[in-house]
């Protein structure tokens, strides 16, 4: 070996030592292969990435580090690269995986750098483990998806809420309209009805003697029908007024309320020879005139359905936790169990007009009044053994009613 060759060899050795040191220090896994694809050199990062000690790799085909499913193609791809070797990224859009010693696949990005030597083209590959990046990308993708779903769902919910609000509004409107309709209809019906009934009565007073028996019968039928219509309209008005003419709640002594109801029913109570047995009633918060109506309707109900015997009615109250339970019991004909719920429906009548005339609104008014007072009303009854109407109303605290109790 001449001095020059020696120096050249020394320089080369220095170069390759330098190269090896640089490669060893690189923070990236690096693998150098020869033109045949045998591994010539790897660095510590590559050992860590692939899990092989370098002794098990040097001199072996680089395909050891390629997952088995890609191995068959790898040689061809590698030769293709050598034909037009430039520094570039491997894969060009494909997802790349490296195969570890333990068989696990690691997603990677690989940079290829050809090194032209007199022994042919060597390829220095820099391999970056991108599993963490992919995980983060996946997480943020998932987060984005989640956020998007949340946003869509929120949007949907908002739309639903808006739809609910609108349909609520529409319901409220139609409810108000219905109430107004009931009020206006029954109110405006009164005027022509009054004209009809008054003229029929006038005809009867003045001209009845000019009619034969059939004419008089027809006149009586007309009068009776007008009276029924008049009662119906009056009761409908009463029902529609439970809400439209509602007064604000004040402390009300139910004893006074019952007094007023009895007073209003004075004549019919006396005519029926009714006995009313009363015990002390509480003071509640409520709409006095509506509560009078409630008692009046319940009492007149008891009078009406008393059957053969003279009516005995009992009214009382008991405390049930934070409510008052008020009862109105009678000794009348009673109500079969299957009708206990339905008697409170409007126009629901269990008897013929002939036996028990009525409009079927009275108990509907009762229920509406009780509902407005945040209470419940129900009936307990056995046919033939009388009926007990029970009402539960919230008991006010002592401070609210103290003023008049």
């Amino acid at each position, binding site marked *: 070996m001449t001095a020059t060759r020696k120096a050249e060899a020394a320089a080369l050795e220095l170069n390759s030592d330098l190269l090896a040191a640089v490669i060893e220090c690189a923070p990236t896994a690096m693998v150098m292969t020869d033109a045949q694809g045998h591994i010539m050199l790897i660095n510590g990062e590559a050992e860590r990435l692939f899990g092989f000690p370098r002794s098990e790799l040097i001199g072996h085909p680089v395909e050891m580090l390629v997952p088995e499913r890609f191995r068959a193609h790898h040689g061809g791809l590698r030769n293709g690269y050598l034909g037009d070797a430039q520094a570039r990224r491997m894969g060009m859009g494909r997802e790349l995986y490296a195969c570890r010693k333990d068989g696990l696949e690691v997603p990677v990005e690989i940079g290829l750098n050809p090194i032209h030597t007199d022994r042919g083209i060597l390829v220095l590959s820099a391999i970056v483990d991108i599993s963490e990046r992919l995980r983060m990308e996946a997480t943020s993708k998932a987060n984005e998806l989640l956020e998007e779903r949340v946003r869509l769902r929120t949007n949907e919910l908002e739309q639903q809420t808006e739809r609910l609000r609108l349909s609520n509004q529409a319901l409220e409107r139609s409810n108000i309209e219905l109430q107004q309709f009931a009020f206006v209809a029954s*109110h405006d019906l*009164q*005027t022509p*009805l*009054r*004209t009809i*009934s*008054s*003229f029929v*009565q*006038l005809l009867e*007073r003045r001209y009845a003697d000019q009619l034969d028996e059939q004419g008089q019968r027809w006149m009586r039928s007309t009068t009776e029908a*007008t*009276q029924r219509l*008049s009662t119906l309209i009056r009761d409908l*008005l009463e029902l529609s007024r439970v809400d439209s*003419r509602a007064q604000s709640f004040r402390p009300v002594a139910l004893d006074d309320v019952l007094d007023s109801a009895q007073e209003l029913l004075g004549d019919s109570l006396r005519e029926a020879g009714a006995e009313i047995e009363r015990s002390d009633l509480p003071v509640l918060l409520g709409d006095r005139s509506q509560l009078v109506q409630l008692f009046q309707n319940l009492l007149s109900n008891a009078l009406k359905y008393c059957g053969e015997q003279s009516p005995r009615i009992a009214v009382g109250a008991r405390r049930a936790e934070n409510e008052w339970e008020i009862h109105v019991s009678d000794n009348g004909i009673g109500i079969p169990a299957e009708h206990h719920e339905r008697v409170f429906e409007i126009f629901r009548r269990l008897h013929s007009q002939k036996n028990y005339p009525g409009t079927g609104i009275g108990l509907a008014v009762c229920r509406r009044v009780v509902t407005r007072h945040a209470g419940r009303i129900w009936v307990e009854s056995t046919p033939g053994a009388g009926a007990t109407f029970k009402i539960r109303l919230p008991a006010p605290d002592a401070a609210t009613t103290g003023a008049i109790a």
Partner: protein
Amino acid sequence: MSPTLRSAEPQRLPQILVVDDNEDDFVLAREGFYEAGIDVNLHHVENGAECMQFLRHDGRYEAMPVADLILLDLNMPVMDGRQVLAELVNDPRLRHLPVIVMTTSAATDEVLSLYRLRCSAFMIKPTDFAEFVRQLKVLAEYWFTVIQLPPVVNGRCRH
């Protein structure tokens, strides 16, 4: 049937002005007074504007007598009962006139506001004619017997 006279001043019939846009209601009032046996002179106008003209003897009402009592419907075209009440209160020459508001039904607060407008009495027209006749009797008892109607001088009210 000869209606009995119940006026406190037998020489003069009470002049009653019925203000109602419904002709039938006027007929019923007329027949009601007849059935009640109350002798009155009834006059009929169809709205508040005509009512004011009648009371002020304006235009075609010039020769009309002084009204002793007004039976006033509430809901009428042109000028309704509430407006009539408001205008009467503000007219010193008509302020004293008893006005009985007649209506099919009214809410409590409406009744109160009408009394504030100085309506003298309030009558809810019953659907039952016999009841109406009873009410008219009560009304006549009170206004023509117990209460001395303001005297009339030269066809005009003395103030």
